[in-house]
């Protein structure tokens, strides 16, 4: 296969199930249908934050799932009042 841009020779690679055609001359890359989406998905997974570590001292079976803190509550009046009252 010839590079559509510079007519150089295209070489085929396979990385994690994605076919990549790269030009030996201009280093340009060609992707087959759907492969850009596959790469994007992989990149997102790579950059996603790791799951929060389990709490050091455990949690009850009926506890709320904690997704790294509910910062939205912090300025709510009823939550602040509750911190300080019986």
């Amino acid at each position: 296969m010839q590079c559509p841009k510079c007519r150089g020779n295209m070489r085929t690679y396979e990385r994690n199930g994605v076919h990549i055609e790269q030009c030996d001359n201009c280093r340009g890359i060609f992707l087959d249908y759907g492969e850009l989406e596959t790469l994007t998905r992989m990149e997102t997974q790579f950059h996603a934050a790791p799951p929060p570590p389990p709490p050091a001292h455990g949690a009850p079976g009926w506890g709320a799932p904690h997704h790294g803190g509910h910062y939205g509550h912090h300025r709510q009046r009823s939550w602040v009042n509750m911190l300080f009252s019986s």
Partner: protein
Amino acid sequence: MVKAHSDREDPGGLELRLRAAASAPLHGLLLAPLRAEVMRVSGRNVTVWPAGQPVTDPEHAPWEEGARLLARLHAVPLSALPPLPPAGGPLRAARAVNRLTGDSPAEKLVRQAFEGLPPFPESPGLLTHGDWHLGQLVHRSHWLLIDVDDLGVGDPAWDLARPAAWYAAGLLEGSVWERFLGAYLAAGGPAVDAADPWSRLDAPARALTAQLAAVALGKALREGREPDEVEQSLIEACGRIVGLQKSLR
């Protein structure tokens, strides 16, 4: 500062609690009254206290200091103190839930969560504050616990149960809860086992969840509005408790 006490309190119990707060073993832990006697003013029980600086910024609250004070309070041998009545936590929870008398689904859920509580673990019978939250700390050269109204002999896990309930409801950040519990354990607090704190916390934290949900729901009902997001998270925690009770049946 003068504190007027609720009429439902038994004045004999208050007298004993006041005497304990004035005693030497609690010096530096619990604010001591200016006068170790209960006075009557216009038919109300009144006690007199030195003023202190309360916690003002919840974002920078002294969670660790509070935890360490509780750990030290729980470690005070009862034999070193004047006799004390039972700590008030369990009664306080029952009173709050009993105040809900309606038949709305939320009210039923809170009652169900409370009624299905597992039996409270054998109480070690230690000195217990009985009603701890951030409003129970004041600063006078260092942080001190205040409020003797529920002080007594009880299961000290009840003093950790309110933050535990907040954490389980998703209101208190996990990192803050871990700081609080970690400081309590590091100070040698006897209420829970470091390897498995929830084995002792579970029952009182469920009771406190029902209590907090009952208080929140009562407030919303009195104000003729739907529970807000924070109040709703406590009712949802009651729902998860009830769900767990059902799945174990």
